[in-house]
Structure formats: C-alpha cells, structure tokens
C-alpha cells in the first residue's frame, strides 16, 4: 500500500521550516527559541511547556501548515513519533527539584516527564483522536515512527498520521553532539488525498520504509535523508490546498 506525503515541517538549529520553500538541515547546534506567536494565534499553556514539547509541537504545526490542514482532524487521525533522548532534559530538571525534598518536587515539571507529552499537546491542538504513541530508538531521527505510521495506515487504523521524530539533548549527559530538533511528515491515505498534490509516496518493503519514486523504490535509512529526497522529487500535478496561517489552539 502506498501512502502520500502531503506535508513536511521541522524545527532545527536553522529555525522553523516547511515543505520545499525552506532549506532543511539537521545539525548539532543549539535550537532557536520558539515563540508562541510563530506557531499559534493563541495557546494558553505554551509558556509552561518544556523544551521537548515545544520542539515537537513546532514540527507538527509546520507539517500540518505545509499540508494545508487545520484541526480538529478527528478519529481517523493519529500520531507516531520516535525519540532517542525523549524527555530526559525534563527528567533531570524535575529530579533536581525532588532532591530538595518531596514538598519541593515540582508537579508541573513531573507532568512533562513522559515522552508522550508531545502526543498530548499535538492531540489537544489538532484533535488527533486516533492511535497515538511514541517509540524509542537508540539513535535520533530514525524512521521507526514513520514505519509505525505507515503500518497504522496500512492496517486501516487511521487515514492520516503525523509521523516523525523529536529530540532535545540534555546538557552534560551525553558526550556526543547529537542533533536536536523535530521533523514531521503528514502521511495520508490515497483515498483521503484524492488527487491533491503530494511530495511523494512512501511504502513498506517488509520492515523498511521505501520511497516509492517513479524511477525506483529507494530504501530509506534516516528521516533527515528522507526529507531531503522528498524535497527534491518532482511535484505531482494536482494543486495544493490553500496553506493555513497561525493556528488557535484549545
């Protein structure tokens, strides 16, 4: 079964970006600060979100904006993301408060000590009521989330999936300079897209994500590489949906 990529969005050290209009690159440099007004007209909780949530939400917003989609997306919409470090930075911040004594342990920080916190925020903002989960990989920005999303679509569990990766490194934890950021794709079933312009088709060849390019099926090894390939594929013929601007969030 082929699935269409209808939106690409990201937050990297170079800033927010989407689709083909922005240049994509993932590096180990620090992420820029994300402002609420860059993503949402309104978001009552944005200032209280931790770095991991803000970063993940940024990629989701940009991908949906690129796809010309707004919420609520409903029961046929789901989410599958991969992460390596997850909420480790927030874990360390939270436990620093807990070490001062139970009375000083921060409930606000503890609420963000699950990697699924980005699921919650994305689901609330865009009404994602379908299957949602986060998957861990030892290395950042792999394709496990994309694979899970493709499987959900193939199995009929959803018709649209936000699929991608989010990682925010924890200072002084790892010796390596793994990149931080988030990259998300909007994947839709062919039936749902119905001739709208898409970047390309993805499929699964056993357990491997394959870019179903017209010239050849190419196995993909990482999400950043996949994004670069999608950016450079020829566009399909159908016109795109009108892009949306800043989004109010519940």
């Amino acid at each position, binding site marked *: 079964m082929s699935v269409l990529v209808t939106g690409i969005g990201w937050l990297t050290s170079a800033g927010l970006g989407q689709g083909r209009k922005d240049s994509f690159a993932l590096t180990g440099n620090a992420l820029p600060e994300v402002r609420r007004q860059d993503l949402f007209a309104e978001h009552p909780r944005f200032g209280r979100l931790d770095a991991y949530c803000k970063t993940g939400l940024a990629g989701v917003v940009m991908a949906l904006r690129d796809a010309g989609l707004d919420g609520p997306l409903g029961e046929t919409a789901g989410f599958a993301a991969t992460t390596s470090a997850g909420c480790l930075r927030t874990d360390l911040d*939270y436990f620093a408060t807990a*070490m001062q004594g139970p009375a000083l342990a921060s409930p606000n920080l503890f609420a963000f000590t699950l990697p699924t916190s980005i699921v919650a925020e994305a689901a609330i903002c865009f009404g994602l009521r379908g299957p949602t989960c986060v998957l861990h990989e030892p290395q950042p920005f792999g394709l496990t989330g994309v694979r899970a999303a493709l499987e959900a679509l193939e199995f009929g569990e959803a018709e649209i999936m936000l699929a991608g990766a989010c990682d925010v490194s924890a200072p002084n934890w790892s010796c390596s300079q793994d990149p931080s950021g988030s990259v998300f794709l909007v994947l839709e079933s062919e039936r749902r897209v119905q001739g709208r312009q898409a970047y390309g088709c993805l499929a699964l060849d056993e357990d491997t994500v394959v870019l179903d390019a017209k010239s050849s099926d190419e196995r993909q090894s990482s999400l950043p590489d996949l994004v670069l390939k999608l950016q450079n594929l020829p566009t399909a013929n159908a016109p795109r949906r009108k892009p949306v601007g800043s989004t109010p969030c519940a």
Partner: protein
Amino acid sequence: MRTVAVVEARAVTALGDLDATWRGLLAGRTGIAPVTRFDATGCISRWAACVPGLERKSSGRSLLMSMLDQLLDASPILSADTPLLAATTKAGIDVLESIARHGRGSKEDVSPSFLADETCRRLDLCGRRETVSGACASATIALARAAALIAHGKAESVLVVCADLVSEFVFTGFSALRALSPEPAKPFDARRDGLTLGEGAALMLLMAEKRAQTEERPILARLTGWGVANDATHITAPARNGCGLIAAINRSLTVAGTRPDDVAAICAHGTGTVYNDAMELTAFRGVFGERQVPVNGVKGALGHAMGASGGIEAALCCCMLADGMLPPTIGLSEPDPAGVGLVRNEPIPLPEGLLLSTNSGFGGINAALLFSKPEQTAGGAA
C-alpha cells in the same frame, strides 16, 4: 486477518510470578506494603507494591536487571529473528537518581531503549525491536501493535516484554500531583482517593495460530481485538465523558468482528483515582449500556505498575480464561454508585464470552484488548 494466539505469558509482581500472583489475587492477598526502597517521608503516601527479592547485582546498574532475571529465568522458545516490542515508561530511572545524587551509574540503563536492548541480549534476538512509550497504556499498545503485525501477515510471532520500577522519581512526582492515596488504593470504591504505585514486568509471546498449532505450542488464549485512541482533551486528566476509551473499546470490537453483547467481563485500568475510575465507569456504560458487565481491577493488590500494568493484566487475563474466574477487586469495600452490580470484592465465575482489558494514561492515551478462550469462535460462542 490471521488469528492471533497467546502461546506464552509470564509476569513478575509484588505477589510473585504469574501463578503466585493469580493464586494470591483469588485468595484476596495484596502486595502493597510500606515502601522501604527509599525514604518516603514528606510524601502523601508511604505505600507501594514492590517486587520481593530485587537487588542490584552490580554497582551502577538498574534494579530492572534483577527484575529481568526473574522474568527471563527460563528463556522462552523463540527463533532469533522474532520481533521484540518492549514497553516501559521510565526504564532504569533509578540509575538517573543515582547519577543525580552521587554522580555514579550506567547511563545506558536510563534510556527507555535499555529494556529492549537488554532483553535482546539475554535472548539472543536479532530481529526488529521497538520500545513503545504510551504512558500507562504502553504495554497494551505494544500488545495491540504485536497483534496487528501478526494478523496482517507482517510477522509470524512477536515477543512483548514490559517493565517498570517503583522509584523515588515517580513516587515523589505522583505525590506532588497529589494523585497518591494516603492508604492502599481502593479501585472503584466510593471513598477512593488516589493510586498506589507498583512495579512489575510481563512477557507475552504472540503467534499466528496456525503456526502455533504447527509447532504444537499450548494456546493460552486468543487476542481477538485491539484498539488505541486518544481523548485529545488534557495532558494528564482523562476526558470525563470517556470518549477516548469508548473509541478504543469500539475499535477493538470492530477488529474482533464482534458486538458489545459478546463481552463477558472487563479487566479495567482501575487506578483508584477519583477521575480515572469515574471515567472508566462512564465509558463502560457508554459501550455496554445498562447491561451489568462484571468489572475487575487488580491495582488494589498489585499497585499501578505504570507502563507494565497492561502487560501484567493481559497475562492475568490468560489465567482468568483458563480457570474461568474473575478475581476480586482487592481494596474495594463500598462500590462507587456507578459501579454497583459491576465491581465486587469477591471472586466470581467468569461468564462465557470475551474478556476486555483496558488501560489509560497521561496524554489522553487509551487502549483496549479483547481476549477469548482458545476454542472460542468470533461472536463469543465456543
């Protein structure tokens, strides 16, 4: 779709291995006791359900290693390329505590990928591996994913392993949220006032039924339906109308090709918090109407084992089906008015039909599994 069989089920809980846990539940025993692993002074509770006999085998390693020693004391019979889906919320978080306090510990144990990596190392598995993070529905989602892979012909068998620890990190956090009960949890009780943390691990080997028959494996149960859905309402609290859990249950019924009338009993999430248990009773009424489907919860005896709870409860579902009994909801004295006639503090015979197991977690995540006896056909008939 292919039929999915459960060919092996194990658990490690505060009451012991799966058989000891099952016998203990039927006898009304609890594994909840004052926590001694760390100083809980200042927290709103001092109770937890800890696995006996866990010890740090080597300095700097997580207690999860010891828990895996108990869970994997005899290797299941597997081919090396069997896919592994692991599930955990905080993995070796006890090592993060040690690193933060003393600067000592194995950082690799802190990564959620550690559970999958360590399991693969011990069992010599070299195939696909994933670690599912779905809050307190992590193991349930892993089982749903495993079943879907088999049903759709993507795998012949899948191993699911889940584990989570009682840790100071999580204990102080739930205390800070004021979500812990000052006394052992009372699921579905009119006077319930919070959860009690627990720990544990579970292992389930799912296999295409035809393959299981060819290999002459014992079939403990069929996993006939599964569903995952999100409330999309709040980052921690469940949707009061139970919309996400209703959707997950309905998805599982659709996958099973069956109707609500075919569900005989429910192994509920039943944390003992005011809002979770109310949400579940609302959701069950939303699916099953006024029919009094018996509901059971085990967290009043085993505590809330976070990401592992769904796996432990799924393993116990196999015991329920095998012995034809629904265990008591330990901790329950006076049912919530919405649970009268549904929840009981004594064991009852399990009616004929499907067994529904549900779990819900932070982030609005809900998951449901439907189990049947091995000889049961779709529609609940034997």
